[in-house]
C-alpha cells in the first residue's frame, strides 16, 4: 500500500515536470536566458585577461573589466582627436575538459557614430580545444572622418563571447 502511494506521488511529480517542460516550450521567448552556464570540472571557458596595447594619438584607456560570468568584457577609453585608436589584447582560455567552439561574438556600444570598433584574430566557429587559450585583438577607433564632436569622448564598449561544445 505504501509503495502504491509512493508510485502515485512519483507519477504526480512527473506530471508536474511535464507541465514545466510544456511551459518552457510555450514561453521560451519570455524567459530571461543570458549567456552560457559554466559547469565546474567539465566546462570552463572564460576570458583570462585583457591587456591594453599602445594607444595611438591621444587615446587613453580608462578601465577594462571582465564581468562575473567571465565571458563578457567591458572596455572604457577616452578619445580627443579623430583618428585616435586603442587596441586591446584579449586572452580566452578553455580550462574545462571538453573542446569548445565560438558560436558568437557580440559587441554593444553606446550609440555614437563617431566611435567604431573592429576585432582581429578570432572568427565564428573557431575551435578552442580543452586546456588551450587564444588571443585576439579588439580595436576601438575615433572615426577620422568625423568633424563635429565634444572635445573629449569617453566610450564604453561591451563584448560578449558565446562558446559551446564542439560537436562530436
Amino acid at each position, binding site marked *: 500500500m*505504501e*509503495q502504491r502511494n*509512493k*508510485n502515485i*506521488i*512519483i507519477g504526480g*511529480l*512527473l506530471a*508536474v*515536470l511535464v507541465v*514545466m517542460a510544456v511551459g*518552457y516550450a510555450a514561453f521560451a521567448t519570455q*524567459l*530571461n*536566458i*543570458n*549567456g*552560457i*552556464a*559554466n*559547469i*565546474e*570540472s*567539465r*566546462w570552463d*571557458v572564460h576570458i583570462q585577461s585583457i591587456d591594453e596595447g599602445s594607444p595611438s594619438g591621444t587615446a587613453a584607456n580608462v*578601465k577594462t*573589466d*571582465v*564581468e*562575473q*560570468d567571465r565571458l563578457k568584457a*567591458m572596455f*572604457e577609453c577616452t578619445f580627443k582627436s579623430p583618428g585616435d585608436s586603442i587596441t586591446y589584447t584579449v586572452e580566452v582560455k578553455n*580550462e*574545462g*575538459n*571538453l573542446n*569548445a567552439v565560438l558560436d558568437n561574438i557580440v559587441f554593444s556600444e553606446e550609440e555614437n557614430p563617431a566611435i567604431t570598433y573592429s576585432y582581429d584574430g578570432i572568427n565564428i566557429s573557431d575551435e578552442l*580545444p*580543452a*586546456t588551450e587559450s587564444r588571443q585576439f585583438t579588439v580595436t576601438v577607433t575615433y572615426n577620422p572622418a568625423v568633424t563635429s564632436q565634444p572635445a573629449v569622448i569617453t566610450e564604453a564598449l561591451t563584448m560578449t563571447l558565446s*562558446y*559551446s*561544445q*564542439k*560537436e*562530436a
Partner: protein
Amino acid sequence: MKKSLIMSALVILYIIINSLVITPSQVPFYNELINPMMWIGLCVMAILLSKDSVLRVKDESNKTQSLIIVMIIYIILYFLLGLIFGFQKTPYSKNIFSVITNIWSFGGIIFFQEFIRASMIKVEHKRKFNFILVTILFTLANLSFTNFFDHFANVKEGFIYTVSTLIPLIVSNGVFTYLALIGGPKLPIVYRLFVTLPEFVVPILPNLDWFGTAIIGVTLPLAVFVYLNYVHVKKTERFSKRESRQYSPAVYIPVFIVIALVAGFVIGIFKYQPIAVLSGSMSPTFDRGDAVVVEKLNKAEKRELKKGDIVQYASGSQYVIHRIVEIENDVYGNRTFITKGDNNNGNDLNPVSSDQVVGKVAFVIKYIGYPSVWLSGMVS
C-alpha cells in the same frame, strides 16, 4: 576485507593514472572511450572479487521510490530557481550524436563507479575506516585534475573553487557511500543520474552564481541523507514511534527553511540584501566591518530618491555605497546623482545615472561584516 583492499588499490591506480600519468584532455577519445573502458575494467574486477557477496539489500524498492520522489522534487525546485535568477544555456552540443556521446561519457560511467563502490563498502570489519576510505577514493576519482592548481592561482579563486566544487563533491560522495551501504548501487545511481543527465538533455539551466551552486551542492545531499536515513531506520530498526520521530525528516524541515531563507537573503533574491562595508569612505555613518541592508528600488521608487539618501550603485563590476549630495537633470531630462562618501574630501568623479542605482540603504548592522572584510583582505 582483502578484496576491498584490492579494489581500493585499483581505484588508487586509476587516480594516479588520471592525475599524474596522462592529461585526459590531450588524449584522443578520453571521455568517450578511454575513461569508460578503465571503469569497465575496474567493474569487472569488482564483479570477480565479489562473486560470493550479496549486493541486494532489504527494502530496496521502497528506498528507491523514496529517493526518486526526493530527486524529482529537487529537479522541480532547481528549475524553478531559474524564474528568480534567470537561465543560462547549457554549453553542451545539442546534436543528437553529441547528446548520446555525452550521456555515455559522463552518465555511463556512473553505473560502473557505483557498482564498484557498493562492492567495496560491503565489509564486515573496520566499517568506519572503510566508509571514509571509499568516500575519499571516489571523491578523488571524480575530481578533474585538468588545470587543478590553476583554481588556486589566488585566494579568491581558491576559496570559490573549494566552496562551490570541492566541498559539495566531498559531501556528495559521503552520501553516495551511505546510499550504497543501505541500498546497494541502485540508490547512488538514481541520485547521480538525476543530477547529471539534465545538463546534457535540457537546453537551459538556472543562472546560479558560485554561492547558489555551493548551497545546493551541500543542501541536496544532506536532504537526501536525512530522508533516506529515516526510511532505512524505520524499516530496519525496531524503534517505538517516539524513538523513530527523532529520525523523521520533519524535524529538519525548519533547518532547511532557515538555510534557504538565509541563502536567499545573502544572494539578494528578496527586497532587502545585506552588504558588507569594505572601506571607511562613509565613516562615521558606518564603518569598515559593518553591514548595511540595502532596499532594492524599482524605477518608480528611484524617482523618489532625494538629497541625503545613501544609495548603492554599480560602477563597472563593483558596487559603491555613497550619499547623494546633488541631483541634476541631463540633457534628456533624466535624473543623475552626484554622490560623495561622508569621509571623502570631494564628490565622486562621475555622476550616477538612475540605471546604475541598485538600491537605498535601509539600516546598518554594526560589526557583522567583519568576516567578509577579513576574507576580502586575504583575497587582496
